């Protein structure tokens, strides 16, 4: 009988042993390195370090682009007003792609850089995966656009400025029924492999049922689907007069275009995933008339929002093809950066950041974030002890496309 490893020659055994030892040493060195980073003082040499992980590539890139503008505008506003008590904020943005592994890698990279707080990731699905990393490492993570149920519940260090679907989604259903009380048959579409979509469709379906409208069909898609002919023709066989979508911008925009091309003329309600002007080039003239509940209105008359909209318009003036009206995702990302900036300033006044151990600074910052009240473009916001945003104002808008169908706007409904 052979002993385990009995056929391995001695030199090979030695090589294996030395390789294993080297591997273990490297792992130990890496973990020690990580520990030192977290326990050393906050590195203020290049400013007060803050990070962001955004979906700048992949099928969610349309959101990340909106968010990047908002974060950079907020950074400019904060630094223009003196930064963190005279120290400028230093922002590093990493592309988290549109999938979970890329978001995990980007979040880990940012944390290892010694940032004090993190904005992102863009998608709920990514936060469910990357949020626990931030939680484990004790880094405040402010989600700017995650609306799925359960995000702040990931842990103490996780909060969000984006109101969850259960608060917003039912408003658009109510508005659709108010505009057309004759609606009787609702068809529902959602992406079954996306955390945001699956969470939001439950809210939509509950809202429909509460209004006495049990969906006549529920069609499941996948995040990367672009051709919906089968699902649409099956849904149209049920003769719906309301279609409710919980999809992301790319697939949702495509579905709307194909839905209209195949002859559907009824009302369309969409969820937060399509809350971006980036849907205009996708569904083009067919975007016209869709209803969407929003957590932000460019028309909100508060000083914070007026400053934000003016800054946005000025920044976009360089590109005449882009709308000067800020989208919700940009406003929310601006707000996330503002929350972190203001909380850092309060913390620094209470406990100067210089010389403060990084882990301690991160923990204290989280307490400051949760304890504050903020005057933001979204209106006044604060947080529950769990990190859920408390926001006063919500709106329902209808997309109005310009003649030619190349651009449009979210027109607020009374």
């Amino acid at each position: 009988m052979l002993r385990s490893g009995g056929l391995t020659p001695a030199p090979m055994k030695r090589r294996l042993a030395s390789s294993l030892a080297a591997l273990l040493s490297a792992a130990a060195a890496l973990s020690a390195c990580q520990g030192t980073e977290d326990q050393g003082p906050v590195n203020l040499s290049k400013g007060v370090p803050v990070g962001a992980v955004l979906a700048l590539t992949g099928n969610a890139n349309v959101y990340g682009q909106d968010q990047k503008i908002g974060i950079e505008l907020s950074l400019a506003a904060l630094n223009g007003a003196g930064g963190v008590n005279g120290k400028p904020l230093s922002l590093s943005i990493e592309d988290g792609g549109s999938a979970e592994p890329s978001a995990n890698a980007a979040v880990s990279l940012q944390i290892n850089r010694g940032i004090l707080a993190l904005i992102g990731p863009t998608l709920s699905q990514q936060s469910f995966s990357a949020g626990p990393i931030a939680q484990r490492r004790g880094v405040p993570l402010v989600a700017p656009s995650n609306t799925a149920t359960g995000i702040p519940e990931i842990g103490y260090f996780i909060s969000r400025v984006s109101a969850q679907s259960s608060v917003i989604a039912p408003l658009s259903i109510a508005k659709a029924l108010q505009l057309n009380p004759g609606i009787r048959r609702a068809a529902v579409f959602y992406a079954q492999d996306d955390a945001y979509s699956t969470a939001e469709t439950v809210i939509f379906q509950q809202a429909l049922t509460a209004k006495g409208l049990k969906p006549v069909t529920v069609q499941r898609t996948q995040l990367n689907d672009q051709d919906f002919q089968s699902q649409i023709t099956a849904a149209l066989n049920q003769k719906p007069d309301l279609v409710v979508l919980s999809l992301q911008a790319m697939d949702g925009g495509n579905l709307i275009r194909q839905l209209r091309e195949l002859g559907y003329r009824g009302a369309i309600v969409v969820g937060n995933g399509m809350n971006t002007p980036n849907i205009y080039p996708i569904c083009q003239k067919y975007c016209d008339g869709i209803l969407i509940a929003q957590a932000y209105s460019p028309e909100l008359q508060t000083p914070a929002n007026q400053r934000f909209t003016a800054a946005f318009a000025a920044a976009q003036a360089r590109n005449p093809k882009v709308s000067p009206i800020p989208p919700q995702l940009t406003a929310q990302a601006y707000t996330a950066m503002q929350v972190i900036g203001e909380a850092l300033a309060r913390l620094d006044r209470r406990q100067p950041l210089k010389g403060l151990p990084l882990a301690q600074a991160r923990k204290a910052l989280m307490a400051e974030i949760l304890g504050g009240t903020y005057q933001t473009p979204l209106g006044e916001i604060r947080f529950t002890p769990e990190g859920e945003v408390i926001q006063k104002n919500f709106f329902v808008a209808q997309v109005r496309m310009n003649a030619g169908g190349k651009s449009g706007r979210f027109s607020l409904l009374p």
Partner: protein
Amino acid sequence: MEGLLQLLFNGLSVGAVYALFALGYTLVFSVLGVINFAHGAIFTMGAYFTYLLIGGAVGANGLLAGLQFPFALPFWLALPLAGIAAAAVALVVERIAFRPLRDRGSDPLLALITSLGAGVILVNLIQLLVGAESYSIPVGTLGSLPAALSIAGAKVRTVQVMLLAISGLLLAALSIWINGSRSGKALQAVSEDPVTAQLLGINSARVIQIAFGISGFLAGMAGGLVGLSISIAGPYFGIGYGLKGLGVLVLGGLGSVPGAVLGGLIIGLAEACVPADLSGYKDAVSFGFLFLVLLVRPQGLLGRPQANKV
């Protein structure tokens, strides 16, 4: 009857794209015995070329931000030109990723990796130049044609009918070329036995270039057509089609042109047959079907069994 017709339309319109895509794989496989993993990226480039040629502008990101050609070609002209541009890219891929290895007599398996690398580089190049945002070919590009057609009660988007018709035409043209022209017959000879073909005076290197060129042309045309149908979802949108195209290639039989067509249509129809409320699982169903077919016919539907040399 109406339901069956609808199902047929749904399946054929998707299957035609898969078939067109898999044909490119097949052509290269037939002459080299390896899969060109850069094919998906060339397909993507075809979509971008079409978009630019019809007068589309590059968005706010990328090195070419704001670029727009000073002309706007009609779609019918832009599509074949995009195919030609994609063919040129395919020739570059052949020159860089395949030929050096072939000249050195390397294991053909290595070409899989170099083509994969070429594909990744191309996708990243697209992103560098035009950004990661999505682009759409404008509604109305097909002129005054209606958005959808109703045939015996079944509804189908006009663009899907176009896609099916153009795919059919391209497939027919390819079959005629392969069976009726000297270069097509040379391709068949090289795919049968490259060494013997060389001894018979056929320039194998030239035939391989032709296979890559046509493969790239088909990929570019397919990319442009899909871009017209469902928009261009960023630089990575060819990857999903690449995976499905591989399935089609294997189902039809590696290296078999009629097999690629049959495989594409069968996968399209299999997806369309998935009940609507389970349509989110259509990929699993189509690949499960592929798995079952391969258990019975490992060489694919129209492939020939590989004889083992002793």
